[in-house]
C-alpha cells in the first residue's frame, strides 16, 4: 500500500511528491473508554515511503488538535501548500522516507474523512452530531493499533507526534509497550494544566453558545456555528504563538495608515486573527473541535496511579526522545521536563532537548536548525537499528 508516485518534477526534491489518501473500513467493534462502542468505522490514511520485507521500518505520525492525515507531500500539482509536517517528513528529512515507511491518519472523531461527528450514523442514517461518543487518547491509540494490524505492522520503529499527538505517543508506550521501539514526544505533556484546560473551556463555550450551534445538531439546520468556531480558533491561535513571534510578525502595524476610532480592524494582528478564524470556521467541524479538546483535557496516564507518573511509566519498554521549545507557553518546557524526570525516575531510556525558538507552541511545525539536527540524529539512530537487509 503505497500512495506516493514518483512523478512531479514540480515538487521539491526533498518532498514525498504527489500523495493520495485512502479510506480504510473497519467492521470490527471498537470499545471506547466512555463505555460506548463503534461497530463500523473508517480511517482516512496516507502513507509515504515503502514498507520493508519484515515490516520493521514503519513510523506512525499522530496529529494534534486541528491536524489530519495529510502530513506530507501534495494532493495535486496545483496545491499551494504541502502537508502540515512536510518540513519534517520526506527524503533526507528527519523522518526520512528513504528509510522509513510513514503512516499518517486522521484520528477517529476527526472531520477529514475518518468517522466522526459529521459522519452518518449507520444506525440512523443521520449525522452523529452531538451523539458521537466522546473519545479519549486511549481510544485513538486502540484504533491506531487496529490500523497497524491491518497494515501488517506488528511493531512500529517509532511513534511520533507533537502536542496532542505527543500524548498519543506516550499512551502508545504504555498501552502497547511491545508494539513500538521509539517514542518521540514533541512539545507535549503527560497532562494539561488548569490554565490549559481553561483555554479549552473558553473555546468550547464560544462554540456551544453560538446560536447556530443548535445543541450540536447544526447540520440538520443546514448551518454551522461559524462565529463560535472562529472565536475558538482565535483564542487558540494566540496561545500557539509567543509574545515575541506576534511582535515580530505584526508589532503595532496598522491595516490602514490611520486609526478608525471604531471597532473595525485597526491593527494587522486583528486582521490576521479574523482571517485565521474565518478560514478555520469554514473548514473544521465544531463537534470535532469539542471532542478533540475534551480528549486533551482528560489525558492523564498517572490518574490510575494516584498521580504517580513514574509508576504509570513503569510498563514502557521503548526508548524516548522528548523535545520542548523555550517560548512555548501552551505546552511549556516545564511540562516536558516533568515527563523526562518521571521517565528517569522510572529508569527508562530517554533523551531530552530544549530547543531555543521564538515561535511558541507552533515551533514544532516550523523549520529550525537545531530541532532538525536533534530529530534527525534520533531518527537516523532508529533507522540504523534496522538490519541492512531490512533497509531498502
Amino acid at each position, binding site marked *: 500500500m503505497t500512495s506516493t508516485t514518483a512523478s512531479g518534477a514540480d515538487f521539491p526534491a526533498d518532498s514525498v511528491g504527489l500523495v493520495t489518501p485512502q479510506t480504510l473500513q473497519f467492521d470490527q467493534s471498537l470499545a471506547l473508554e466512555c463505555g460506548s462502542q463503534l461497530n463500523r468505522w473508517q480511517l482516512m490514511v496516507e502513507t509515504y515511503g515503502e514498507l520493508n520485507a519484515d515490516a520493521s521500518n514503519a513510523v506512525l505520525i499522530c496529529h494534534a488538535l486541528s491536524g489530519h492525515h495529510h502530513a506530507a507531500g501534495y494532493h495535486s500539482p496545483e496545491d499551494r501548500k504541502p502537508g502540515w509536517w512536510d518540513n519534517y517528513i520526506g527524503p533526507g528529512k528527519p523522518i526520512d522516507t528513504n528509510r522509513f515507511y510513514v503512516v499518517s491518519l486522521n484520528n477517529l472523531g476527526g472531520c477529514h474523512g475518518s468517522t466522526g461527528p459529521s459522519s452518518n450514523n449507520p444506525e440512523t442514517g443521520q449525522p452523529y452530531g452531538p451523539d458521537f461518543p466522546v473519545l479519549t487518547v486511549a481510544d485513538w491509540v486502540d484504533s491506531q493499533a487496529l490500523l497497524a494490524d491491518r497494515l501488517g505492522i506488528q511493531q512500529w520503529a517509532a511513534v511520533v507526534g507533537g502536542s496532542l499527538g505527543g500524548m498519543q505517543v506516550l499512551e502508545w508506550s504504555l498501552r502497547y509497550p511491545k508494539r513500538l521501539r521509539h517514542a518521540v514526544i514533541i512539545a507535549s505533556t503527560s497532562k494539561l494544566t488548569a490554565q490549559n484546560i481553561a483555554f479549552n473551556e473558553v473555546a468550547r463555550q464560544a462554540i456551544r453558545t453560538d446560536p447556530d450551534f443548535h445543541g450540536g445538531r447544526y447540520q440538520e439546520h443546514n448551518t454551522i456555528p461559524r462565529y463560535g468556531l472562529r472565536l475558538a480558533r482565535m483564542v487558540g491561535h494566540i496561545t500557539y504563538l509567543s509574545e515575541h513571534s506576534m511582535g515580530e510578525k505584526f508589532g503595532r502595524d496598522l491595516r490602514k495608515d490611520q486609526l478608525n476610532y471604531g471597532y473595525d480592524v485597526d491593527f494587522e494582528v486583528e486582521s490576521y486573527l479574523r482571517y485565521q478564524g474565518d478560514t478555520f470556521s469554514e473548514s473544521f467541524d465544531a463537534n470535532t473541535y469539542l471532542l478533540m479538546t475534551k480528549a486533551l483535557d482528560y489525558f492523564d496516564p498517572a490518574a490510575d496511579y494516584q498521580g504517580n507518573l513514574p509508576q504509570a511509566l513503569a510498563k514502557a519498554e521503548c526508548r524516548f*526522545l522528548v523535545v520542548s521549545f523555550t517560548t512555548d507557553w501552551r505546552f511549556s518546557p516545564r511540562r516536558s521536563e516533568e515527563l523526562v524526570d518521571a521517565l*528517569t525516575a522510572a*529508569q527508562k*531510556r*530517554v*533523551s531530552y*532537548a530544549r530547543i531555543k525558538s521564538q515561535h511558541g507552541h507552533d515551533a514544532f511545525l516550523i523549520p529550525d536548525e537545531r530541532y532538525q*539536527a536533534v530529530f534527525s*540524529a534520533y531518527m537516523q539512530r532508529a533507522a540504523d537499528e534496522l538490519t541492512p537487509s531490512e533497509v531498502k
Partner: protein
Amino acid sequence: MRQDLAIIANWVKPSAHVLDLACGDGTLLLHLETQKQVKGYGLEIDPEKITTCISRGVDVIEQDLNRGLKNFADDSYDTVIMTQALQVLRRQDLALDEMLRVGREAIVTFPNFAHWRCRLFLAFRGRLPVSRTLPYQWYNTPNIHLITFKDFEALCADKGIKILDRAVGNLAYEDHWKARLWPNLFGEVAIYRISR
C-alpha cells in the same frame, strides 16, 4: 584508550546506575556502557554535544548544572560523575553536596591550579597562568573557580566527605613518581572517588 576513562571504568561497579554531569559528547558513558554495562544518563547544555550524544545512542538530558539536581531523588544513582567541569560551576561546595545526595558515590576530575608550571607562570610573569589544562585568558575562561588538590581535599575534610580513591597524573593521566610524591606540585589533573 584515554587513561582517565580506564581509571573511572575501574572505579564504577558493573551494571551500576550512573549520572554523568556535563557528559560532553558521551564518550565516557559510551565507554562505561560497553565496558561495564552501566545504565544512566548524561546531563549537558551544549547543543552540539547533545546532538552527538543522541546520534551515538547515549541517553542525554539537556540540563544546566548550576540549577542543581533537584529533579533527581536522594540515593537514586550508584555513582554520579563529573569530569573536567567542577571548575566551571558557580558553587562547587553545593555541587558536591548535590552529587553525594543523588549518588551513593561520586567521581570528580579537575585540573590542578597549583601545578608547578602554573606557580612559575604567576611567580615570574606576574600574570594569571595559561596552560594546556587551563588554556584560557582570565577574561574569557569558563573556569570561574580554579581548584588545587589541596583546596579540594580541605573542602572534603570540612564537609566530612570521604576520599575513597585518588589518581593524579599529567594530562594523559600517566603516572609519575614526582606526581605521587608531591601531587599538588607535579600533578596536572586528578580523579577523586568520594562518598559521604
